[in-house]
Every structure is written in C-alpha cells, then in structure tokens.
C-alpha cells in the first residue's frame, strides 16, 4: 500500500539535506568569498604542452600527400626525480633504450621542462612498456609525427615544418605548444588551420592533475596532382641533364622551375622547383651539414615564385596585346596582317642625330613578317619597331609607359597573390625606377637615365625586367580568360581578383592560333614538338631566351598551351642557364603536354637552338 505520509517524511529529509547544502553554498559564496580571491591568485599550475596532430594534406584526387602519425611516446616526469632515484631512472633508460647516448640521457635529466620525452614506444615490446610504467615517474602520451609521403616531390609547394623561433611563437598562438610550425610553402601559409590546439598536462607540484586532449588541425586538400607533378619533375630533370650535356657552362645547370596552371580556374596543378630537398629531414630537426649543403644549392628557394628571371621573348605577348589594342604597328603598317621585311637588323636614328643598329638573333633575317609571324619566328625587329613607334609618339611624355602599363595589367611586377609565402614580384623598369636607381643603385643604370633603347630592350623581355615563372604563366592565362586572378593551391581557397582586362573573344582566339604556329612548321619550337605527330596542330606556346649579364648562360623559357581548341592548361618552364628556350625549355614542356593530353610522354630531346 502507498503511504503518502512516508513520501512527506522522505521529502522533509531531502529538504533538510538541501538546506544543509544551501547553507554550505551560502557560507562559501558569502562568508568565505573575500578570502578566496587570494587563494585563487596564488594557484600556480605548471603546464606542459603536448603537440596537436597537424591536419593532413591531400591532393585533389584525395591521395594523401602528408600524413600525421600518432606515436605513443614515453615521457619522464622530472619533478619526481630526486637524488635518491636519479641513478635508478638513468639506468632504466640506458638499459631499455640502447640507442640513446649518455649525452642524450644527460640532456633529458638537465631539461628545465616538467616533462621530457624519452623514446617512441612504437617498437618497444608491450611487456617492457608495462614494466616501465610501474615506475612512478614514467608517463605515456601520444605524440604526432609529420611524414611527407612523397618526400622531395612537393618540397616547395607543400613546404616543411620546423621548430618555431620566437617571432613565429608570437605570430602563431599554438606554435609554442605544438613545438612545430610551418616554415615554408602551404605548411606556412595555412599554419593557422593546419595546426591544432596543443593538449595540456597540468601539474600541481610533482603530480599530474589533469590532461586536456589536443584538438587536431584541419586537413587541407590541394589542387596539385601527384601524377602530373611526378611527370613534371622527371621532365625537368631530363631537360637539365640534356642542357648540361650540350652546353659548356661554368657551373652545373641544376636550377629550374615549372608551373602548370589550370586556365579555367587558376588552380596550380603542378609546381616544381629544382633543386629540391626532402622535407622529412626537418621533422626531427635537420643537421647543420645537410642544411648547408642544400642551402648552397639554393634548394630552399621555390624558383616558381621566387626565381626572378628576365623573361626574354615570352614577354612579347605583352607587346602583341598592346599592338592590337592600341593599333600600334611598325612604321607604315596599319594592321596586324601587314608585313615588314625583316633583314636581320634594324637601324634607326634619334632626334639628336645619333644612329644605332640593332641585330636580330637571326642575322640573315626573317623575311616578310606580320604580327603572327613575328611571334611564330620570334622576330625581334618587328617588336623593336613597335617600341620605336611608342618612343617616338610618347617618349618623354606621360604616355611613355604604355608598355609597362600593359605589362602591369597582366600582373608583371605585382604579387600574383598565390597562397604561398615569400612570393617575389620582380621588376618592370620605367623612367621613374631608373631615376630611383640613379640614387640608390647607381651601378645598375647609365647617367642618361631611361632611354629609347631601354624600351626596345624591355619589349623583347630583356634588360632590367625580371619575372617569376608563376607571373608569366598567370599573364598568359590572363590574356586567354580576360581576368587576372590569383593562382591557388588550396582547393577551397578564396580567390582574389587582381584586375579585369578588356579582351575580346576574337583576340584570345587569334592569340591562341598564333601561339599554335610557334610549335608548328616554321615556328621556333617546331623541332621540340614535332615528335608529337598529328596532334601537334592543336598545341601552342612561346619560346624565350633571355640573355644574362656576365658569363652566365642564357635563361631558357617556354610557355606552353596544352590545346588551342580547348585550352585547359598553361605551362611555364624556366631553366636557369639552360640556353635557348626552343632547345631546352620547349622539349621539357612538350613532355608535360604529352602527359596532359593523355599521350605517352617521350624522353626530352634537345630542340633547335634559336634566338
């Protein structure tokens, strides 16, 4: 039977207990309140950070490129070490982990940290683990380890991680606790999202009173394509070997870069810079020897965004665009279809009566040359003529920087805003820059300052102008799509629109057609591409050979378009001291284009020496 009075009785008791609890809370919050502040302020807990697992990196097909391995690690709680048990623990460590030297062990015990990692337990027998854990001062925590699964393949694009310096510790909140920070490449650019929040071990005295789990970083999916990247590296290495075989250069030809840019999206699908390095070397801290060796080879430079080269004839598309847009053609010509007769040199005079003769790379001349032929055969005379016309029309006026403005609209001397750190911008020289240099770097300029000859140099991509391979690739992309936006490597990156340019479909189409003529019969890159066979008619590009000061061999350039009818990729290739663009850079690009078109890539063979 149900007895209600017993319910009442129970709840009176419960109420009494509640009253007691309430009284306790009341005394805590009211009576003891004032004394608590002091007590809380005096609470100091030592914290030790356990690194958070970094986000993993996948290529656009979801193939894992960079992995975070979680390893059980044995730690020692140094607070529990005293004079009495010091020798015991030293013996235990020495006995169980024979590859630790005496020095290593001394380092462990001299550490100022509360906890000190000793050894990964991955390969340690379970019974040994259990036995070690019976000793009070040993603790096990999970520690993440970075592993670059394709070692050298992505050393510049993905970058590497390393121990943070004090600046990085200030810049990135979690760097100190993670004991690791992205040093270069995507690892640095996306440090905030890749790095997680480190876990915490909280100590009171020598006791661990709390462990807070780390929060792993976010994964990153990149636009890179592992297969393409590997083909590009092979091709570039073959090209470098070939260049070394064919040229007698003072130093070994070993530097080069290739960028493969998706024309529709601006995604970077491959980015290679040689020489490269294995980012895994940095995970445990790189040795001084390795570092110096690689540094001397400039292996840490990503030449695709940091290498500054005069672009040579690949720059001619700027004048090509200018000529069509402004209707400025060589003297007496009215349209792009009219021809000049190139005799292999250009002699011209200035108002002051001085006369000069410029020689084309092809001394016997190109014959009848219109705009299309000038690009196809890389005829300098045609472009010099355009430069002269600009100079005569606008020289020493506000309009004289017409060519420079067109170049800047295509992104030259500006950041492409790619999602990588340390991008360099290069130079598009003009009168103002030369005036500045007169003061700051007088060794670079003549006393007369900016002259018509400088403009004539600039129009064929020579002289003071410097660009990065990515800038060049992005400039070509801009001319095809009509918009200069940032290339990107993070598949989910927000794209930055740098500027829009006014380009008609008609222009893009005949530009593509004319680029197509370069790789076909009569074009500078025909020899390098002829192996492709039937499909050659649909491929295009532009060669470039830029002269360098001193004894340095020429810089070899090629910008390729995988398809004229359906352009999908622009490939910019540069080989530092590689010589003629048509001989070295063009066949490298050809092999990449073969892969992009689903053809079997054939070995890189030395092309024709032009320019």
């Amino acid at each position, binding site marked *: *039977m*149900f*007895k*209600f009075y*017993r*319910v*009442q009785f*129970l*709840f009176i008791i*419960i109420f009494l*207990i*509640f009253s007691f*609890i*309430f009284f*306790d*809370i*009341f005394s*805590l*919050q*009211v009576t*003891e*309140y004032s004394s*608590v*502040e002091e*007590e*809380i*302020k005096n*609470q100091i*807990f030592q914290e030790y950070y356990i690194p958070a697992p970094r986000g993993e990196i996948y290529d656009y097909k979801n193939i894992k490129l960079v992995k975070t391995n979680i390893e059980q690690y044995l730690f020692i709680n140094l607070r529990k070490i005293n004079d009495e048990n010091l020798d015991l623990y030293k013996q235990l460590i020495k006995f169980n982990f024979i590859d630790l030297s005496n020095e290593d062990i001394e380092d462990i015990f001299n550490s100022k940290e509360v906890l000190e990692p000793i050894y990964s337990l991955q390969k340690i027998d379970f019974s040994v683990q259990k036995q070690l854990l019976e000793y009070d001062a040993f603790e096990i925590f999970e520690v993440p380890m970075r592993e670059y699964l394709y070692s050298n393949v992505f050393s510049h694009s993905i970058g590497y991680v390393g121990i943070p310096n004090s600046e990085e510790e200030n810049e990135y909140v979690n760097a100190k606790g993670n004991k690791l920070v992205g040093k270069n490449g995507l690892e640095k650019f996306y440090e905030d999202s890749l790095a997680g929040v480190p876990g915490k071990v*909280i100590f*009171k005295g020598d006791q661990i*009173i*709390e462990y807070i789990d780390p929060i792993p970083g976010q994964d990153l999916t990149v636009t890179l394509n592992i297969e393409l990247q590997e083909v590009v590296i092979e091709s570039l290495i073959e090209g470098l070997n070939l260049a070394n075989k064919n040229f007698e250069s003072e130093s070994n030809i070993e530097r080069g870069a290739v960028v493969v840019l998706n024309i529709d999206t601006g995604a970077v699908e491959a980015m290679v810079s040689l020489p490269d390095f294995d980012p895994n070397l940095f995970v445990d801290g790189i040795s001084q020897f390795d570092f110096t060796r690689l540094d001397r080879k400039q292996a840490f430079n990503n030449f695709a965004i940091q290498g500054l080269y005069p672009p040579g004839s690949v720059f001619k598309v700027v004048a090509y665009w200018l000529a069509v847009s402004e209707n400025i053609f060589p003297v007496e010509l009215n349209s792009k279809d009219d021809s000049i007769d190139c005799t292999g040199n250009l002699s011209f005079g200035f108002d002051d009566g001085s006369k000069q003769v410029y020689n084309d790379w092809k001394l016997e001349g190109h014959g009848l040359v219109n705009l299309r032929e000038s690009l196809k055969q890389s005829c300098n005379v045609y472009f010099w003529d355009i430069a002269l016309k600009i100079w005569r029309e606008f020289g020493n006026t506000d309009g004289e920087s017409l060519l420079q403005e067109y170049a800047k609209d295509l992104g030259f001397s500006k950041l492409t805003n790619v999602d990588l750190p340390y991008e360099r911008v290069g130079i598009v020289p003009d009168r103002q820059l030369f005036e500045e240099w007169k003061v700051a770097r007088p060794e670079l300029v003549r006393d007369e300052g900016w002259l018509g000859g400088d403009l004539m140099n600039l129009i064929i991509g020579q002289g003071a102008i410097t660009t990065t391979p990515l800038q060049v690739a992005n400039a070509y992309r801009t001319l095809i799509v009509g918009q200069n936006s940032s290339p990107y490597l993070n598949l989910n990156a927000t794209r930055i629109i740098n500027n829009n340019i006014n380009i008609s479909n008609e222009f893009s189409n005949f530009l593509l057609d004319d680029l197509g003529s370069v790789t076909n019969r009569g074009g500078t890159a025909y020899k390098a591409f002829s192996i492709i066979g039937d499909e050659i008619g649909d491929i295009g590009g532009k060669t470039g050979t830029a002269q360098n000061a001193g004894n340095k061999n020429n810089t070899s350039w090629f910008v390729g378009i995988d398809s004229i009818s359906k352009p999908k990729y622009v490939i910019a290739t540069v080989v530092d001291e590689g010589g003629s663009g048509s001989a070295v850079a063009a066949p490298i690009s050809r092999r990449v284009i073969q892969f992009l078109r689903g053809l079997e890539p054939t070995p890189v063979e030395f092309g024709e020496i032009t320019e």
Partner: protein
Amino acid sequence: MINRRITLIGPEGTNLYIVFQFVLFNVISWFTLYTSIESLEFNLSNLLFRQIIFSTIGIGIFFLTTYISINQVAELSFFFILVSTILLFGLLLTAPIVGVNRWYSLEAIGIPVFLQVSEFSKVFVVAYLARILSGYENRLIGYSLIFLNIILIFLQPDLGTSFLFVSVVFCMLFLTDIKFKQIFLISICLILLFFIFLELDFLGQYQIDRITSFFIGEDFSQQQSRLSISSGGITGTYIQESLDLNVFVPVQSTDFIFSLYAKNFGLVGTVILFLLWFLFIFRVLIIIQQSEIIYEKFLLSGVILMLSIQILINLTTVLGIIPLTGIPFPLLSLGGSSVISTSIFFGLINRAFIENNIVI
C-alpha cells in the same frame, strides 16, 4: 482515460508549467555552457552545439512520452526492464571505453555519440519498481530483475550510479507499508554485499583511490570546485566581470557543472535554480497526494526521488561532502543520455498532470 484526445501543444495536450520549466532548465544549461565555451559552431565537436542538439531531441522525446498514458507505462514496464537488462548485459561484451563498459559507441554508424545505458535504466527501473510495488508483478522475479540491473551497472564499473539506484529503490520500498525491521535487515545485507564485492576485487583501483583520497581530504577537483563556487559571490562573475578569476576545475562541463553555474551566477543564481526545483517537486507531490491510481503514485514518487537524489548526490560531490561519484546534475550537466532520460521523466510527469486535468 486512455482514449483522451491529445494535442501536441496547448491546454488540452500539455501542461504549460511543465513545458516552460523543462525548456527553462535546458536554456540555463546552454547558457552555463556558453560561459565556459564562449563559441557556438555548427558541428558536433562544439560542446554547446552538441548540447543544444541533445536538448532539441529531448524536447521531442518529452512530447512523444506525453502520448503514452500512465496505464500503458504500467503495462509496458516489464518489457522496459527486459530491454534495460539486455542492454546493460550487452555492454559488458563491448570493448571498454576509457577503461569502463559504460557506453555504446554509435561512431560505427557514423554518429559521434556515446549512449550511456544506465541513464535510460533510471526510467525503466523506476517504472518497473512502481509496478511491483503496486502489486501487479511476481515479487520474486520483479526484485531479482531490479537487483540484476543494479549489479550490471555496478560491474561496469559504475559505483556512483549503482549507489544512486540503491538509494532510490530503498526510498521507494519505504513508501509501502514495509516494517522498519525489514528495512534494517535489507540495509545490513547490502552493506555486507558491498564488502564482499570489495574483497572479490570487483572495484577498480581508481574507485578505491577516489574513496581513499576523499578521506584523506585531498581530492583536487573537489577542492577546486569549492573555490570555483566561492568565487561567484552573491551576484556571480557573469555580471561582475571584474571579479572573474579563473579557477581550474577538471571536467567542469559535465559532473562539476554546478561549480561553473554557481561561479557565473552566484548565490542569486543558486537560489533561483533551487527554487525552480522546489516548486517543481512540490507540484508533483500535490499530484501524488490527489491521484487515485496507486501505480501513478508510486511512479511519480519514483521519478521525483530519482531526480532529487541525483541532485543531492551531485551537489554533495561538487561541494566535496561525499567522494567523487560521477552523477550528473539533471538538465544542467553536459551529456546527451542524461538529457534524454530526464526528458522522459518530464514527459511522464506532464502526462500525469494531463490525466489529472491540471493544465497550468
């Protein structure tokens, strides 16, 4: 009464006071969590978002429970206890999570949730025990099943929850015409049983540690929790931000959530929370007195006993009066299983209010 027309919301279907109070408790819980997490992101790893999702499911379950009449609960109670027994037994066969067999992980089917079965057993055991006490079931089978449930929870091992169950069962027995002599006898048996288990090494080392560390007065989290409560003062740090001193309390958002609540909202908040619960219990007591159905009387007594003893154990733990138990504060602590089992309790009470024609 079974054929009553039930509408989802409104005077005829739902007691407004109960709904209001239920939602209010949930909101207080979100707010308390927010003071500690300080961000709401829409994914299940954000604890606040998680709790809001659980509360939303809980509100749904509250209304669903309202559709089941008290009579149906009585008739289904044997089935409930069987389900509870099977689930608890199944737990012992799963792989332990952090050293105990307390949760079913739903991660295998893609939901990052852990089901704590003993939370649901709270409902099932109370419903079934009320049935036994109102004289419908075979007592031998009945008490054995209840006992089996408690033993299975004890074996997980979960000392705190099994202690809670023993207390509630004990109190419910006390509501019948049981003699004091019998109660005394049962107590002796239980204490003996506890020590036998202790001898047989059924208790984990950490549980013994908890008890011993309590008696030497050293439990860190309880000391910290007292400091945290104290730092709230009268109005709480939420209003007087200048007084905000960070007191580190381990696992504060689950079992120690009251220390966070009291720190943020001070004595004023504590008084409000206590008054809300008193009012709630008082109103249920009135129904118990008025109701003419024996089963309903036992069921409702069991429900409010379960809730108030949970709160008692939780508060005494947070204040360091008894050793660590791991009992959550109903509708305040973070934890999906607890929210949902408490939603069922509230749903049952709501149904009882309706059946007694109390709408506000």
